[in-house]
């Protein structure tokens, strides 16, 4: 029994939350009575089966144990201590990554169902690895089943857009010092024609060779000489500089260069190679993206497999399917057809050229950055239709409605130091009908062309509906 008494209401000024007819709120506003209008929608978008599952999960003891598990998930996320410790060849980081094995972005997908840019990247990487003489041969080999395709996520790795990871590519190594796990991501290639957007001509392959032979090893030496670069704090500073760490990494890319430049110089054996490394990093506003992604993976992996937790541990896309994983349901992927980004295009391109959404990069949204931290990065809001900068904060506020909590260490100054919304709860996604907002680049649908724009995409509700059914079963409902 608590100490409320209904007559308490008569001793306080009325503060109303109005759920339903807007006119009632307008009338209260006209009387200067404080009122908050809820933009109410039927739970689960009116899907009665899902709504009834949600209602069952609301019942006292079940709700309690889910909330407790989610609290633990959030605690693991917030206590993570990701540090950039090295750059090494992928097969050194991932010993099981063998010959003719190609890791790709998103949930599992075979050659037949791969989208254009993914096929282009596969052909390119096969030539790069020396498995095929040329792109045509590579495609023929892929079609003949000569390559083994696996998601990056199955090997502790993530990759942007097409997300190609193969044995000889250097990968960034992030260690989560709190839990001792590691995660990997290739090095960002820069803007323009690049493999992550399906680019595969000689210019693209030459850059990858230079990264493999010169830049990757140099970066590894430099990072090792610093003893590792803690990322949590660096990221907090990036947020205050206008980064959201998905479409905008200018601040963090600058900060990491500032930290690594002396070490690069100290460990350099060739001045012109040093110049090339510094110029490459300094000329790439998105250099930090791949670090942020590996960091996301390193933060989320220890959150997997918590009994009763409805927190999303991974979101990713392969250009064909969107896939999510949830803590309590472990390694299982729940997929739905991926959606088209809504965005702005480079001159000469339009929606007609766009490939559906792609990449493991949505791992940054999974940890509360990207679309979730839009409020830190008002310019990015402009990507959605005629959105104005002032709307950026609304994206972040909306995401607070589908998350377990906020991250007190990663705050948004312009939103009165609101912590980024952290720990996506599938129940809240379905109840509110608010899909996670993901900031993304847009690839040309034809292989080899590259990036044509950037925009925002929403995670398909169908993924969440599917996983809810499976999740409910794990807690004994449904």
């Amino acid at each position: 029994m608590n100490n409320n008494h209904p007559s308490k209401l008569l001793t306080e000024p009325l503060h109303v939350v109005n759920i339903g007819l807007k006119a009632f709120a307008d009338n209260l506003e006209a009387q200067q009575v404080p009122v908050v209008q809820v933009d109410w929608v039927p739970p689960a978008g009116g899907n009665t089966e899902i709504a009834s599952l949600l209602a069952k999960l609301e019942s006292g003891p079940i709700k309690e144990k889910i909330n407790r598990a989610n609290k633990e998930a959030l605690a693991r996320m917030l206590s993570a201590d990701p540090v950039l410790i090295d750059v090494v060849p992928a097969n050194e980081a991932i010993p099981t990554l063998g010959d003719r094995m190609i890791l790709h972005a998103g949930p599992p997908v075979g050659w037949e169902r791969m989208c254009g840019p993914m096929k282009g990247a596969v052909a390119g990487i096969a030539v790069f690895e020396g498995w095929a003489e040329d792109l045509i041969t590579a495609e023929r080999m892929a079609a003949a089943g000569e390559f083994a395709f696996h998601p990056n996520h199955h090997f502790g790795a993530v990759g942007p857009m097409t997300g190609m990871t193969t044995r000889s590519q250097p990968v960034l190594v992030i260690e989560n010092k709190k839990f001792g796990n590691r995660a990997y991501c290739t090095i960002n290639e820069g803007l323009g024609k690049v493999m992550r957007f399906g680019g595969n001509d000689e210019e693209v392959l030459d850059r990858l060779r230079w990264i493999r032979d010169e830049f990757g090893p140099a970066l590894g030496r430099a990072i090792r000489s610093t003893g590792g670069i803690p990322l949590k704090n660096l990221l907090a500073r990036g947020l205050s500089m206008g980064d959201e760490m998905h479409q905008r990494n200018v601040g963090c890319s600058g900060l990491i260069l500032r930290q690594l430049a002396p070490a690069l110089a100290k460990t350099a054996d060739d001045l012109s190679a040093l110049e090339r490394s510094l110029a490459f990093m300094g000329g790439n506003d998105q250099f930090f993206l791949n670090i942020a992604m590996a960091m996301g993976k390193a933060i989320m992996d220890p959150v997997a497999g918590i009994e009763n937790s409805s927190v999303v541990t991974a979101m990713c896309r392969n250009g064909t399917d969107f896939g999510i994983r949830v803590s309590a349901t472990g390694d299982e992927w729940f997929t739905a057809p991926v959606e088209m980004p809504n965005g702005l295009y480079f001159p000469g391109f339009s929606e007609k050229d766009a490939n559906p959404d792609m990449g493991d990069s949505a791992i940054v949204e999974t940890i509360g950055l990207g679309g979730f931290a839009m409020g830190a990065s008002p310019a990015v809001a402009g990507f959605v239709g005629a959105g104005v900068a002032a709307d950026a904060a609304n994206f972040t506020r909306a995401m607070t409605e589908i998350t377990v909590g906020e991250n007190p260490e990663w705050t948004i100054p312009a939103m009165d130091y609101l912590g980024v919304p952290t720990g996506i709860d599938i129940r809240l996604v379905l109840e509110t009908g608010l899909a996670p907002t993901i900031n993304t680049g847009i690839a040309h649908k034809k292989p080899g062309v590259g990036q044509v724009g950037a925009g925002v995409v929403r995670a398909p509700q169908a993924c969440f509906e599917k996983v809810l059914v499976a999740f409910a079963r794990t807690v004994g409902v449904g």
Partner: protein
Amino acid sequence: MKKVIVNQVKTGFYLDSVALMRFSRTIAGMDDVEEAALMMGTPSNKKIMTEAGILGPEGEKASGGDLIIGIRAAHQAAADKALAESINLLEQSAVTRKKGETWRPRTLAAALKSDSTINLALISVAGEFAAAEARKALHQELNVMIFSDNVPVGEEVALKNEARELGLLVMGPDCGTAIINGVPLAFANQVKRGGVGIIGASGTGIQEVSCLISQGGGGISQAIGVGGRDLKKEVGGISTLMALEVLEADPATRHIVLISKPPAASVAESILARIKESRKNFTVCFLGASGLELPNNAVFSSTLKAAAESALGGTSISTGFLPDQAAASPPKGKNSVLGLFSGGTLCSETQFIFREAGESINSNVPIPGVSKLEGIPKGHCFIDFGDDEYTQGRPHPMIDPTIRDEALVKALSNPDVGVILIDVVIGYGAHNDPAGHLASVLPPRRADNPLVIASVTGTDLDIQNRASQVRTLEEAGILVAPSNADAALLALACLKRKGG
């Protein structure tokens, strides 16, 4: 005509790439512009512009810190226009062109996060969802008013029991009216504050009584709605009993008025037992009830008007209004009264007055002793347009009075109808000019048309203003009575005049 490529470089001018992409899209969408882009002159951007065929020799010279405007148009005039517009956009860029949208939470939980001082949830979502929202509100320690109807009675009982455990008040479901701490909620009127507390199972009942008290010189401390089913056996008056506790403890409440249809016997018993323990005085208005044994501190009122007068300490509300004097003669040979109501309780009150006068009547919502309206109306007939059969999929007649227009116009030429009775309810939630609407529907009065008698439920403090609504009705040839009960009495007097 020849295609033209126009470049202009703004040296040392930086603007964010997203802003530039939006400008680019605007310019590229102008008439006769084939392609356009505003970009910083970095090598990769220049490459993109070259491939799009919009980079000329001037743009080539730009460096990474310069902004390039590149336009390819069908002719020079279009290019010039696009260039001018580009520069215009760049110069305006510091100014907000469009106001950002205000964020609104999607859920109760988010609303509470944004404002922790919230103490009442007003719920008007579709009935099938209302109970779930109400339960969430209770768990967040909010008092709840549920305007929604069609909530299963089992849910109502469960919610009210839960609320009692939590020490919170549930008003409704199907609670149309409340006035808490002087704030009218949902369908309610701006009334003077004073010493009378009202507990009502009926929205229009509360509206009529609170307005008559306010217009009669008194005032309202609190008006607590409990929902139409609260005094039924299944619910057992849970909210009514809690509301009694609340008003008992409220020092501003001196006198309490209870308004409801006749409750279930067992419920009436427990309510009256509670009243007996109270230190305050009561007026009990269970419309249509008879033979109640009341405790000494309570008096019975058979109509809403009588309840208001009792709460005012016996003051007469309609001083100077004498139905027999105000009555007119209905057209020859037309002997029936047709009542077209938007307020259910106003319809009940009229039925009661006609029943007591010994008239034979029927209604779609009959009170005891009144026949259920079947098929084509015959004799005196009282229709509640707020009943479910009329409101499925359309707004309540208090919001949208057009629902009774057709019946009204038809009644004018009905050979049997001598008097049309109509209620006009104003206040928050109601139509912004219901009297004006009625006046616009009625054709100029003819001698063979039935008399139209109306009353206005509302106060001069309401935005529609009662006095001006009355004036509008009178100017349209409508006889206006000071209360709903008086309108019924006036109709009876008109019939008598005919008979005499």
